[in-house]
């Protein structure tokens, strides 16, 4: 089993860590260099973890488990106005990032109000491209109960963060409800506030575990990191994308940050060692996010094989 790990250390000799990941048959998910520090997110086989730990100890780096690595989580607020941003939404997004997830902040166009809140089809489909979503609501139980129309049609598990204590039974369409968040006009720095952030992360972790369990019932033809590696090798233009993360990993596929029209053919023809091309094992379509390419890997029940 591949273990999601985050390496934090100096730039000097970090390429040795990257080489070891590749030698062990793992995958580098993300590399961030900030001045003299480097943060690497990668997957390595759990049985080879001691080898990695020895090397990192030698380099005076730090290894932490990143349970959400390789997933994309949407942090949704009713709008992008000052009422919801920056404090709560940014704190949650940052916390998700620290745990290895790629978080995207989404502000709905007309998500405000108790009676008038609405979500449109485009927004719903954009959120559906993620692995899970956190909806941040306010301080009144009545409003939170009423606003379930915003996430009723969303297929991915939705964690609701709000202020008051509400029984989960009152929110049948939510995966979980985390109280003590709501509207806050300051940064989360008190111990109780940080515990709440941890609870959101734990809820997201459970949501993702459920999705993973569903996937194991009908496994994907191949794993998303493997597709990512093949695309990176055979569509080298992706390295020139201005995005900090040119290929975003999901549990069921990847999003390539290149224009769809220009690169769809090249992406479809990506070939694996087993002789199959990407178009045979995945649905390649325009992503709802900008003009990116969305790749959804088909389950083995549809292709008839796993590699």
């Amino acid at each position: 089993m591949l273990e999601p790990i985050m390496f934090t250390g100096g730039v000097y000799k970090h390429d040795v860590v990257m080489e070891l990941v590749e030698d062990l048959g793992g995958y580098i998910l993300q590399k961030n260099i900030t001045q003299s520090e480097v943060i690497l997110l990668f997957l390595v086989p759990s049985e080879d973890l001691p080898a990695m730990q020895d090397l990192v100890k030698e380099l005076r780096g730090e290894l932490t488990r990143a349970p959400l690595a390789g997933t994309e989580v949407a942090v949704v607020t009713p709008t992008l106005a000052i009422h919801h941003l920056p404090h709560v939404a940014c704190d949650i997004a940052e916390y998700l990032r620290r745990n290895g997830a790629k978080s995207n902040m989404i502000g709905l166009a007309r998500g405000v109000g108790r009676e008038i809140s609405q979500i449109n089809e485009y927004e719903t489909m954009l959120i559906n491209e993620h692995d899970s979503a956190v909806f941040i609501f306010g301080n009144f139980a009545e409003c939170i109960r009423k606003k379930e129309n915003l996430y009723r049609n969303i297929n991915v598990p939705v964690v609701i963060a709000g202020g008051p204590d509400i029984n989960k039974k009152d929110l049948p369409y939510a995966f979980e409800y985390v109280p003590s968040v709501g509207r806050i006009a300051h940064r989360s720095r008190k111990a109780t506030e940080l515990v709440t952030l941890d609870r959101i992360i734990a809820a997201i972790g459970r949501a993702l575990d459920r999705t993973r369990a569903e996937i194991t019932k009908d496994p994907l033809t191949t794993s998303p990191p493997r597709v990512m590696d093949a695309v990176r090798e055979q569509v080298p233009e992706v390295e020139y994308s201005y995005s900090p993360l040119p290929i975003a990993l999901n549990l069921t596929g990847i999003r390539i940050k290149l224009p769809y029209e220009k690169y769809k053919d090249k992406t479809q023809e990506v070939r694996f060692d087993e002789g199959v091309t990407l178009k045979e094992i995945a649905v390649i379509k325009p992503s709802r996010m900008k003009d990116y390419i969305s790749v959804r890997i088909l389950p083995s029940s549809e292709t008839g094989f796993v590699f």
Partner: protein
Amino acid sequence: MEPLEVFKVEVTGDEEFGSKKYRELIMDILQDLGLIRSIGHLYVYIDIKKPVFAVYGLIRTNIPPLNVQDIGDVLKLDGVYQIKLNNEEHMEQLLKILWQTYGRERIEQPARDVLIVVSDKSPAELEVVDVKAEFRQDLTDALIRVAPEGFRNRRNEMTENSFLFMAAEETLTPELIYEIKEKIRSMENA
């Protein structure tokens, strides 16, 4: 003087948490905008079933306007006056008022924070900033920030020493406004 001598928040229905949180939220926002010391009494009424949000407050008056001598040191030199600014925040308004009073040709700026007025008349007493108008702007901004976001129908009644801000999702009818005013009055008299 203590900020907010009276601060009451009333929320209808079973919304104890919301009431407590709104108290914190209002304090945070008023503190952020530096308004907390200028407000004496504050009554907040929220009815989430209607839904409507109202804030009534008493403003601590006697905020004097800022004169030239409040924002810098005025020195009389040989036939001219020199103004040395302590901070440049009000430079734009100061220049505008000096140009208006003395004319552009009589104002010089030898350094970033120094102005020379070529005149015998002292500029020390000239009013540079109407702090009251600035305060009202900041207060309205704070009230819009405090109100729940979807409440887009707003009404703000400001007098010399009080303000009443109402916001609702639906139209603010005269009946609703009357009802809110009655409610605030009863809170004030309680």
